[in-house]
């Protein structure tokens, strides 16, 4: 009796409980995203009323695809994303493996490692700008003192170095998240597996390849996807650090979207770039899930 009534009221209750969430999502995510995609087909400028804008069809997109700067931006975004994902994962894994065993001072070491993640992004970037400063930066100073650098390097002003600097700071800021998730993953691997392996005479490398890595698979799947998506659309860190410069060397698609819309006031064109970004991420995620589920069947 209770069960039947219960099932009948489930739909009603789940709608009621989710109403506040739906309202917020509707107003601040769904409606804006639909509007954003719609704007990408218009020639809207920032300071003119939306209904005064002209429908352009696909012309924003055609303009974008025939513009070499767009492809340049896409290339920078891809390089940045790959660099960040690979290094974040590697450093995160090494740190997690070091922090996993019991040793004296482990709690302190863990807190110190996680610290960059708690610092506000803008503050973190500004500290790094000071460390990397061309004239007064401590990195150039130490580099010269230790004889590693012959002259000061323009970490943020040299177009050949700026992207590397941005990648380094991004990794510094976000690898703690990878460490935390991998630490949690390591704790789910049963200790008996290692004991059994040791009895079979496995060495450390074999243990790592055949027990640790497969055991981390569920975490790896989520972690790699999240870090890829976050890096692909990352904006504050790059914007505060270089503003996309020098000479567009760090102008990722996110930065380009913002600059087009709020510096050049081309809302329609900016939205078109943003929409393409969204499409790339959706397609990437679908392929990713397809690959993951495919490899599961293969096992």
């Amino acid at each position: 009796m209770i069960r039947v009534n219960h099932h009948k009221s489930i739909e009603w209750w789940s709608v009621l409980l989710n109403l506040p969430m739906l309202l917020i999502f509707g107003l601040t995510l769904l409606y804006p995203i639909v509007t954003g995609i719609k704007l990408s087909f218009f020639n809207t400028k920032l300071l003119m009323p939306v209904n005064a804008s002209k429908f352009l069809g696909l012309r924003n997109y055609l303009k974008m695809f025939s513009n070499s700067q767009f492809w340049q931006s896409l290339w920078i975004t891809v390089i940045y994303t790959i660099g960040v994902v690979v290094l974040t994962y590697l450093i995160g894994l090494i740190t997690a493996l070091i922090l996993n065993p019991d040793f004296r001072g482990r709690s302190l070491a863990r807190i110190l490692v996680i610290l960059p993640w708690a610092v506000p992004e803008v503050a973190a970037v500004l500290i790094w700008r000071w460390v990397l400063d061309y004239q007064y930066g401590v990195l150039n100073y130490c580099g010269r003192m230790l004889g590693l650098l012959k002259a000061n390097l323009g970490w943020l002003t040299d177009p050949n170095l700026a992207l590397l600097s941005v990648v380094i700071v991004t990794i510094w800021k976000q690898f703690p998240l990878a460490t935390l998730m991998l630490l949690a993953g390591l704790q789910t691997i049963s200790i008996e597996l290692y004991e059994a392996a040791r009895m079979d005479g496995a060495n450390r490398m074999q243990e790592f390849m055949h027990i640790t890595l497969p055991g981390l698979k569920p975490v790896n799947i989520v972690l790699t996807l999240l870090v890829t998506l976050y890096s692909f659309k990352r904006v504050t860190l790059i914007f505060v650090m270089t503003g996309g410069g020098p000479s567009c060397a760090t102008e990722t698609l996110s930065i380009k979207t913002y600059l087009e819309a709020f510096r050049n006031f081309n809302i329609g064109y900016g939205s078109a770039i943003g929409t393409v970004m969204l499409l790339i991420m959706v397609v990437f995620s679908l392929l990713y899930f397809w690959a993951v589920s495919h490899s599961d069947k293969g096992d």
Partner: protein
Amino acid sequence: VPALKLGQKSKLGEINLGKCGFYLLLMVIILPIVFPFYWMIVQSVQKDSVFTFAPHIFPGSVTFNSYRTIIKERPVVTWFANTFFIAALTTVITVFVATLSGYSLSRFRNRFSKAAGFAILTTQMLPATLLLIPMYIIFRDLNLLDNLFGLVLSNTAFALPMGLWMMKSFIDGIPIEIDEAGRIDGCNPLQILFRLIIPLVLPGIVAVATFAFLLAWDDFFFARTFISTESKWLMSVGLNSFIGEYSIQWDQMLSAAVMFSLPPIIFFLFLQKYLIKGLTLGSVKN
């Protein structure tokens, strides 16, 4: 597991080399992580000018002059209060909404909860810069531009998906028998949630609150785009304004950066274990 290795080694008495190597490696990893913090604090209290070609790695004499200067000459306290206000309000709303929805998604599994799970993942793909443009127009029409409540709304939208997912994972861990006992006593789902479930998911609530607070405290782009009046700026925007067109007041900026970073670091140090549990719960299980 490597715990075993270290332990075994020490029993065998060949500790010294292995242990030294281990701590050396630890130092190599931790030094570049910690140095920028050290540098920020040291340079913000250094008495001598920070503009020197041979910076002092260790501070000579200490002064708080730059702190005094920014508090007197720039509206730093106001920016600080604004940031605290929007972070606190975002936290309260996120926790409330995430608890209601998280409970529903955890307990009432139907088409709706599947769709919600998919929607949450999709939100992680939305580029903030694409949202910024239409949000600007919508907020302009709703009179939410240059308004701190607008920032609360936009930050809640960004904190909610992950918060919701964390809350669902925590509630998943509470046995369904508790709900059934409540139902037999004649409670409706809302009563079950508030009387029985919430007291049991306090760690989850702390986790979601920490997450939302840190996220809103970090906001820069919404604040920069939607707020124009200087007295309504957030600390992040104010901090960035120390970077002028031609010169940067580094000593003042570093002092402001220390002030800005302290609350989230303190917050984080005390509540990290909840947040870490919340962030890893969902991902490890699925």
